């Protein structure tokens, strides 16, 4: 019973935090976009525009709900829901912090410590494309279908390099559990120092999997109007846009957990804090790392132009994939030699 209360409260907490962060990621995106372009961004709703995401949400709810005449109604509604669900599902395996003790009960700050956590990540990421594909196809619009096709081929191409980069990481750490991977990075032994190439590959692939610039060919306005969400309106469109920011948040969390020590930072356990407060500080550190990565996502978006489609495919298959295989072989060779 206590177990279920603990888990359910953790699920609700993580869900809420994810949604709030995604909400404010939209504001951060607009604000930082403005700063990069010498503007000041939205500042009308609340102090410094802090209520802007709320205003956007309300606007989405009051927009007209529109379903095109020849669209497949069931799949049209299913698409954005799938996108959102797949985006939220990844939060289950991310270790947010060290165990904390409440009323004599040890509470793990992770919803499920799967012994195949890394594979679970890869699996859920590969499902994310269904929302886009189904929504794009159900819209009965040529631009949406083109976008769906683009999204799926892009996802498959970059999943390979991503998986191979993960395999090299798993070879280095010797575990598929995210918790154990984070624990192994204790004391400044961050994986990024041992797997720099693997990290770079994973970073690039995360951009591709999250459909962010420069890999946002699926919603390329100049060619495909709005891509897969051309026909969407109201909160269904909101779901698609929201899922993108959740994906960004999750990708940042995964990168900080896998390569940047998660909730560890050097010297955390030498300050002399009690275990609980050290764990809470660790959670804060983890979120700082996530915020840094999210800033990087936004920074890249307002710096780089979009790839052309053939460039995207060449990068994925002819550069990233061989590099990932080389990285994997090199890691295997090295761990055989040293260990």
């Amino acid at each position: 019973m206590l177990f279920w209360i603990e888990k359910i409260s953790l699920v609700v907490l993580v869900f809420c935090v994810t949604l709030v962060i995604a909400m404010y990621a939209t504001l951060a995106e607009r604000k930082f976009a403005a700063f990069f372009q010498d503007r000041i961004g939205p500042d009308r709703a609340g102090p410094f525009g802090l209520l802007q995401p709320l205003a956007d949400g309300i606007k989405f709810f009051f927009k007209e709900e529109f379903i095109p005449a020849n669209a497949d109604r069931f799949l049209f509604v299913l698409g954005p829901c799938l996108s959102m669900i797949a985006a939220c599902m990844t939060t289950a395996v991310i270790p947010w912090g060290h165990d904390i003790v409440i009323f004599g009960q040890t509470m793990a700050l992770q919803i499920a410590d799967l012994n195949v956590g890394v594979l679970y990540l890869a699996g859920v990421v590969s499902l994310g494309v269904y929302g886009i594909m189904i929504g794009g196809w159900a819209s009965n619009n040529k631009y949406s279908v083109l976008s769906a096709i683009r999204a799926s081929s892009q996802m498959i191409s970059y999943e390979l390099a991503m998986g191979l980069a993960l395999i090299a990481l798993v070879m280095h750490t010797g575990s598929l559990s995210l918790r154990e991977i984070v624990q192994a990075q204790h004391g400044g032994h961050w994986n990024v120092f041992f797997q720099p190439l693997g990290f770079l590959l994973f970073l690039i692939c995360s951009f591709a999997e999250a459909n962010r610039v420069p890999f946002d060919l699926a919603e390329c306005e100049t060619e495909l109007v709005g891509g897969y969400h051309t026909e969407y309106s109201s909160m269904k469109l909101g779901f698609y846009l929201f899922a993108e920011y959740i994906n960004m948040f999750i990708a940042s969390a995964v990168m900080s957990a896998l390569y940047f020590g998660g909730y560890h930072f050097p010297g955390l356990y030498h300050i002399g804090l009690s275990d609980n407060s050290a764990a809470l500080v660790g959670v804060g550190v983890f979120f700082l790392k996530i915020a840094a990565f999210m800033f990087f996502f936004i920074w890249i978006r307002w710096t780089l132009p979009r790839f052309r489609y053939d460039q995207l495919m060449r990068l994925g298959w002819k550069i990233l994939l061989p590099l990932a295989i080389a990285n994997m072989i090199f890691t295997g060779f090295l761990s055989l030699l040293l260990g």
Partner: protein
Amino acid sequence: MHPLSSRSRVVVNKTMTFWERLYLPAIVGGLWITFRHFFYKKVTIRYPEIKRIFSPVYRGLHVLKRDDLGAERCTACGLCAVACPAEAITIDAAERKPGEEGLYREEKYAAKYEINMLRCIFCGLCEEACPKQAVYLTDRIVPSSFERQDFIWGKEKLVEPVEPEKRVDVSIRHYFQKEA
């Protein structure tokens, strides 16, 4: 061909070196450029709180002036309507009745004076055409609206108030007109 400016540069379609093909250094360079812009002075003007200073010759919303005694200067001669290239001005003339000397300066006055702000191109030709120095373009902006009807400005909105402190200042326009 002779270059038109010193900024022209000959484009050479050379093959890229390995360093250039790596693409990552270029990305870092780009990131540095955008990061610098983070700290640049922002060009945005927060409009309703801070208003931009107009040029002294700015031509905005029209005003129909009164003379020093508070009588309307306009005599409904129609020169402004004729001069208007956009045909935005409509005038109906009327004769001044006895006892209205304080209201209208001349014996003839405009019973109706309408400017369609959607047609007006704010060229200022009406101002130049006016022999009585009655119509001027000011540094005010035509307010936006959802209805077309709201953009047809009649006398009740165009003529300036009688009270001396509420008069619309057109001294700058007047000055520049004389210069010209």
